[in-house]
């Protein structure tokens, strides 16, 4: 096994958190994380983002009769407390392993009447299984911090100079979008317009403290929607906000940052 370091974690941590690393790399990164508090904290944060990402998946109306079929299956299967004791996950109190195990068809708990999808054993790389893979000591730390994967935790405070700032993009009629500025060695800005500005091409300008405006790009809005991202050019004066300007030169929306850059 290759000894990994913090640079390796920086390279692979996102994939680890997303649960998409293969077994060997996953084991090697985890071996490093186990002994590196900084990377462990970073992994918590990335895992939290990964879980929130999955939660964004939209709801959808199931087919007619779905509810009835599910209830019939559950009703036919008997008390869960009895069945559950023999199933994967039940042997890991406090270290829940939701999903990802063998499919229903491969379990003793197969239910009469259920249309079974043959399911293969998942590659052992799900982020929900990170918990099981970590040593007891690491597990105690991550659980002690308030949760793991499906939990929430407070982000490290870090230096304000390196933290992103979000600001609402507003018109006289209210909020129409959002601006995000991420400082750092290679600062960048993103802007999203969600509604209210119709179909047009708009200029994006940064507003400096002395009220000067610097045009850094343009993007098209379609049915009021559009988004755009670009590096922030070096500026002699601190940047305090951003604005959108239409083709006639009129400012149509503004954003004011909570701190300057």
């Amino acid at each position, binding site marked *: 096994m290759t000894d990994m370091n913090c640079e390796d974690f920086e*390279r692979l*941590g*996102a*994939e680890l958190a*997303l649960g*998409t690393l293969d077994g060997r790399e996953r084991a090697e990164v985890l071996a490093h994380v186990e002994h590196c508090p900084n990377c462990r904290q970073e992994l918590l*944060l990335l895992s939290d*983002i990964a*879980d*929130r*990402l*999955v*939660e*964004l*998946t*939209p*709801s*959808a*109306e*199931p*087919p007619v009769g*779905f*509810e009835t079929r*599910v*209830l019939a*299956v559950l009703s036919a299967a*008997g*008390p*869960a*407390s009895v069945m*559950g004791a023999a*199933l994967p*996950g*039940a042997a890991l*109190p406090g270290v829940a392993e*939701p*999903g*990802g195990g063998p*499919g*229903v068809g491969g379990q003793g708990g197969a239910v009469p009447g*259920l*249309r079974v*999808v043959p399911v293969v054993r998942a590659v052992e790389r799900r982020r*929900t299984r990170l918990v099981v893979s970590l040593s007891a000591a690491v597990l105690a730390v991550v659980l002690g911090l*308030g*949760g793991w*994967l*499906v939990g*929430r935790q407070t*982000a490290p*405070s870090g230096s*304000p100079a390196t*933290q*992103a700032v*979000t600001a609402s993009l507003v018109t006289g009629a209210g909020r129409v979008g959002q601006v*995000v500025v*991420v400082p750092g060695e290679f600062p960048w800005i993103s802007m*999203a317009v969600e509604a209210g500005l119709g179909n047009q091409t708009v200029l994006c300008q940064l507003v400096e403290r002395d009220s000067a405006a610097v045009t850094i790009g343009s993007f098209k809005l379609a049915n009021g929607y559009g*988004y755009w991202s670009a590096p922030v050019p070096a500026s002699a004066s601190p940047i305090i906000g951003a604005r959108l300007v239409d083709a006639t030169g009129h400012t149509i929306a503004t954003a004011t940052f*909570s701190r300057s850059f």
Partner: protein
Amino acid sequence: VDQLPDETLLSGLGGGDEEITVAFVRRFQRKVYGVALSVLGDRALAEDVAQQAFERAWHNAHTFDPRRGTVNAWLTTITRNLAIDATRVHRPIPVDPDELLLRITASSEGPERSALAGESATELRAALYLLPREQARAVVLAGIVGLSASQVADAEGIPLGTAKTRIRTAMQRLRAVLVSEQVDHD
């Protein structure tokens, strides 16, 4: 029963309470089916997986720990993992990430669920579509559809290194936004 908290419904589900089981399924069926459909892109498969997810939740209700997350997150994870398993057998071609992105960014949960999700979901949704499109596609394929970087590279027709960079950069940008959100709320 419909007013009971999610955790109470889940406890009742595990205990075999019929009325609570009905309420639990009604409350979460749209979410469970939606997650399965997002990963699989196939209605029939999604229905099978959603059904399995409820069964898995019912079997494992006693393992849920409210200190570690919400019932919604727990159930979402169950469903996603089952759906990813199913894709390996039934759907080698991943869903169109642009279509999935569109569904995510245009998503409108019911008022109750939106209130529970709070601002963090809105912030993340905004951050996701603030990403350059190629990064958003990569992180959705990896994070929601469950593709490895190598599979993302194949699906997108790009070198493996590029796929890895897109996934990593996207996650760093989402991280930056959410750290900022946390600081703002503090």
